[in-house]
């Protein structure tokens, strides 16, 4: 029960931050409210007992990715009047219908997880206390044994992203010159 209340509060923060991020006219405020939403999601991660990923969410998402977004918003000097207003009338209703219908479909389809059998490992721990699956030792053990090769591939992917981004933004000579 306590978990459900905490989930309501933290999930409410996450949803409110996300809703403000997609409605606010000023792009800087939109990015900052998404930071608040990411902190709410990090709180949900902590609630799920994944302390390590909650910290990573705060550091990498709220701290690095969204700050990069903020840099780019300032770099391209996006003013609120550059942002097209949210469409009114028919397009808005159709979009709301699509997103709301998708939410309804998801909520209905996910209803079947209630009938899932309780997994064998969790049967003797029926309390709402978080387990230790998400702390650093089990995560890193899985990461460096079963997923060592994908981990190495991921570092190569980061390198490719680095090279690609620097190639994208550098000034190139035009073909005419």
């Amino acid at each position, binding site marked *: 029960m306590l978990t459900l209340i905490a989930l309501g509060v933290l999930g409410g923060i996450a949803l409110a931050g996300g809703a403000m991020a*997609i409605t606010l006219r000023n792009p800087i405020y939109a990015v900052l409210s998404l930071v608040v939403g990411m902190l709410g999601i990090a709180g*949900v991660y902590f609630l*799920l007992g994944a302390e390590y990923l909650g910290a990573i969410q705060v550091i990498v998402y709220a701290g690095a990715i969204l700050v990069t977004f903020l840099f780019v918003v300032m770099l391209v000097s996006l003013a609120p009047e550059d942002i097209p207003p949210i469409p009114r009338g028919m397009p*808005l209703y159709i979009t709301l219908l699509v997103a709301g219908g998708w939410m309804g479909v998801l909520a209905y389809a996910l209803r079947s997880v*209630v009938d899932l059998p*309780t997994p064998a490992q969790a049967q003797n721990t029926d309390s709402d206390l978080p387990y230790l699956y998400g702390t650093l030792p089990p995560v890193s053990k899985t990461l460096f044994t079963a997923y060592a090769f994908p981990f190495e591939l991921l570092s190569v992917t980061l390198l490719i992203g680095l090279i690609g981004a620097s190639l994208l933004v550098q000034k190139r000579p035009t073909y005419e010159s």
Partner: protein
Amino acid sequence: MKAELLYAFLTLSAGLFSLGLLGLLLRRNLLLAFLAIELLLNAANLNFLAFSRYHNEPTGAVFVLFGICLAAVEAVIGLGLVVRVFRVQEDLGFAKLSKLQW
């Protein structure tokens, strides 16, 4: 964790996903569309972690770690594209976004 609680977490994730979808469809600006994509990615990560907790098994957490790293790469490439497009036409609206040539 009980299955009902799992359902609550999955519903939150579905709500975040729908918000991201809504933002992607409503914001007609390249940069703000990327912001909505971040919401979509986070909804997927939340699902992974909820099931990871349900099965008490760290594999889902490892995949969330991969997902966050790939989101960082995606953000860097996407923001590079934004800067590039801005340098060419100084307008990030979808209406004028019809070519990716330099």
